[in-house]
């Protein structure tokens, strides 16, 4: 019962946040809207007992990423309001058209058919509640699965992707530094902004 | 064969090309002589090949080495009576065209290397018995010729080079489809895919499949020949190509198309060959008459000779689709003859261009006074090209005409008109260029052929006379192979070659 209430409340918060992201005049408001959405999502994660993921969501996403966003917004100038006039010719129409198609198809496909989420062979109806403890995402549980601790032949589980991703992060960091640092050297013609 | 003759013959020009490239760049006076000497090696090898070639059906000097077993691709080379003359023609024309390209100033080293690479490709394509090896060489020769035309050509050489390359590449792409289809059929039938020509000969293909395969291969070769609708790249390529380029292009590369018909279209798809013979014959005859007619009104001497090639190759194609012993023999020997006569004509036009920097007939007039030897050689080549009996052009044309009458009477008679038209356009050109009084001052003191240039023509004239008077020397070697092709067609289709018993009416 509590779940339903929580879902309703935070569902609306998430959607409201999302809408502010795309409709707000001022980037700051959209950043805040995004934070609200992320926060409500972490609540949902907790409802699914995915504690580790919820924690990361808050720390990495809402914390680090959004602050970075705010920082950049500050850098670019917060008071800049956008004129919402649309240059691209029929961009709006395309978006609306796409929106409609996806809406109609989902409705047609889902309503009426016995839409099964899990279509893997031999899987019975989803025992939603029974799975609760199976996916009790404590850090220990996720850690064990991540590094394949209890898999039969002790394979490394997700170790390889984990390393790959870490490499990705390093590359991203180097990239960002390079972009920021070497910019003055790559002088491409006179640009108004160039001061130093 | 104990001694890998053919592979060596393909390798030697490659080594020669590399050697020329390794020569010091600034010692330009060294490049041409070295290339010339090195290009004589294949001539020697060709001679040995010719001597040890027995006049018997089937392939000789065969070598086989696996390349990609999984798909059944092997380095399978060998020659028979049809391929031998063309390889000899290649080995002979290369030194001649090298000797004739002294006027190539810009980066001659690369030019000579390109010519030698072209030789390797040509010998490879004529001796390949594996379809993929054939296809690789078929494409490989395009590249050096593209550069020869593209870099050392005259005014709008780029347009001509690209047009030549794309046109032929389009054709060979079609052919690749055919080749792969064949190997797939082979796989479906025997479970093992193979590109080996001799293996594919055993594969019986349904008439429907034969039809489209014949068409696919046929179009690729028709572009190369070139046959009537696909010939427009030839005049452009020739007008823009340097002398050596034209000689090799007309002398040998055009024969790829006709060789392709003889090697692949007839034996592999005999049923379709018999069915499509009238179509091919029509295009051939149109080519003869049309090529000759268009040649008459050409203002550019080189274009005139190019269109004459279209006409002559029409004869070869008519000979091939006549499916008679004489027709095929005439076709094959005419390939060699055309190579020599048109090669000579292109050399002459090239030398004229080097002297007068123009190819337009209108700019010439009364040259015979200033250059009698040149005029003499030009007249000799003209009459060889017209098909004057006693010279080599006649032997090929006569065999084709008489040979093709038995099965394609109407076509043969119309083709004979080409003989008259040939006389018209070449003699009219000769008259406007050489006879009359040299009214324009620059035509009065044009230098005649120097020793080097005259020496170039000595072997050609000798061969023209030899093949004209005693063609048996080549015909003996060609005859068994062409007989083999006809027997194969007779065996696999209900076509029977009309034969005569002297004294018994065949009607």
């Amino acid at each position: 019962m509590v779940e339903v209430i929580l879902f309703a409340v935070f569902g609306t918060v998430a959607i409201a946040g999302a809408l502010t992201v795309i409709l707000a005049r001022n980037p700051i408001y959209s950043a805040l809207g995004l934070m609200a959405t992320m926060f409500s999502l972490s609540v949902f994660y907790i409802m699914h007992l995915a504690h580790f993921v919820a924690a990361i969501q808050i720390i990495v996403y809402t914390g680090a990423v959004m602050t970075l966003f705010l920082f950049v917004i500050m850098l670019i100038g917060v008071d800049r309001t956008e004129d919402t006039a649309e240059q691209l010719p029929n961009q709006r129409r395309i978006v609306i058209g796409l929106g409609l198609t996806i809406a109609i198809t989902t409705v047609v496909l889902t309503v009426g058919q016995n839409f099964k989420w899990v279509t893997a062979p031999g899987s019975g109806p989803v025992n939603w509640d029974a799975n609760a403890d199976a996916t009790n995402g404590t850090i220990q549980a996720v850690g064990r699965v991540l590094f394949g601790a209890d898999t039969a032949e002790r394979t490394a589980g997700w170790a390889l992707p984990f390393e790959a991703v870490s490499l990705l992060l390093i590359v991203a960091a180097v990239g960002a530094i390079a972009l920021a640092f070497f910019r003055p050297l790559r002088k491409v013609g006179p640009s108004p902004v160039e001061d130093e | 064969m104990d001694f890998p003759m053919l592979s060596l013959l393909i390798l030697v020009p490659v080594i020669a090309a590399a050697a020329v490239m390794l020569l010091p760049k600034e010692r330009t006076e060294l490049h041409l002589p070295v290339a010339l000497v090195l290009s004589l090696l294949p001539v020697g090898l060709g001679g040995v090949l010719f001597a040890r070639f027995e006049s018997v059906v089937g392939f000789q000097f065969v070598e086989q080495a696996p390349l990609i077993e999984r798909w059944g691709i092997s380095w399978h080379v060998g020659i028979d009576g049809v391929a031998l003359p063309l390889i000899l023609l290649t080995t002979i024309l290369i030194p001649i065209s090298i000797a004739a390209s002294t006027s190539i100033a810009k980066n001659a080293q690369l030019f000579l290397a390109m010519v030698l690479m072209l030789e390797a490709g040509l010998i490879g394509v004529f001796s390949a018995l594996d379809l993929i090896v054939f296809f690789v060489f078929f494409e490989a020769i395009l590249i050096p010729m593209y550069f020869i035309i593209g870099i050392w050509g005259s005014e709008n050489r780029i347009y001509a080079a690209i047009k030549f390359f794309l046109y032929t590449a389009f054709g060979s792409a079609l052919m690749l489809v055919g080749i792969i289809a064949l190997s797939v059929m082979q796989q479906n039938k025997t479970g093992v895919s193979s590109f080996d020509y001799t293996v594919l000969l055993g594969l019986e293909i349904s008439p429907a499949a034969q039809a489209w395969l014949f068409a696919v291969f046929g179009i690729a070769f028709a572009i190369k020949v070139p046959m009537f609708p696909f010939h427009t790249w030839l005049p452009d390529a020739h007008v823009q190509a340097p002398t050596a380029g034209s000689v090799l292009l007309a002398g040998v590369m055009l024969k790829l198309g006709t060789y392709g018909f003889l090697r692949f279209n007839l034996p592999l798809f005999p049923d379709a060959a018999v069915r499509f013979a009238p179509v091919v014959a029509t295009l051939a005859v149109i080519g003869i008459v049309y090529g000759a007619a268009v040649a008459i009104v050409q203002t550019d001497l080189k274009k005139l000779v190019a269109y004459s090639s279209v006409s002559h190759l029409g004869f070869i194609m008519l000979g091939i689709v006549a499916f008679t012993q004489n027709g095929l023999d005439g076709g094959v020997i005419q390939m060699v003859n055309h190579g020599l006569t048109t090669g000579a004509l292109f050399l002459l036009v090239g030398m004229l261009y080097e002297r007068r920097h123009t190819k337009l007939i209108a700019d010439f007039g009364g040259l015979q006074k200033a250059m009698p030897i040149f005029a003499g050689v030009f007249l000799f080549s003209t009459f060889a090209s017209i098909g004057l009996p006693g010279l080599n052009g006649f032997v090929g044309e006569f065999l084709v005409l008489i040979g093709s009458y038995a099965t394609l009477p109407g076509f043969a008679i119309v083709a004979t008109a080409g003989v008259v038209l040939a006389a018209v356009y070449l003699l009219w050109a000769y008259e406007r260029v050489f006879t009359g009084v040299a009214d324009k001052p620059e035509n009065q003191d044009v230098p005649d052929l120097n020793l080097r240039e005259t020496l170039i023509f000595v072997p050609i004239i000798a061969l023209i006379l030899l093949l004209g008077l005693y063609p048996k020397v080549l015909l003996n070697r060609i005859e068994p192979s062409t007989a083999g092709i006809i027997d194969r067609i007779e065996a696999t289709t209900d076509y029977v070659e009309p034969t005569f018993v002297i004294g018994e009416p065949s009607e």
Partner: protein
Amino acid sequence: MAGPTPYMALAFILFVIGATGLLTRRNALIMFMSVELMLNAVNLTFVAAGRAIGNFTGQISVFFVLVVAAAEVVVGLAIIVAVFQKRNSASVDELSEMKG
């Protein structure tokens, strides 16, 4: 509340909002945030699906999506700043030299 359907529906809505944001807004930052929004929607589906099939793959996938998103933001913002330094405007339509 048996089954993940409601969560999937919510994620779907968030995703569509993100997409429209991406396509309609011209400010690079807003577009960027819309992308983040879409990624979050995807994360939600992962977690819900994980619970539906009863193992941790869902949550681990979220973990990786998150990292990738972080890397993307780092580079993306650096580019936006660099572009801004040069063009003095964050509007995406300015950058149309790569026209066909």
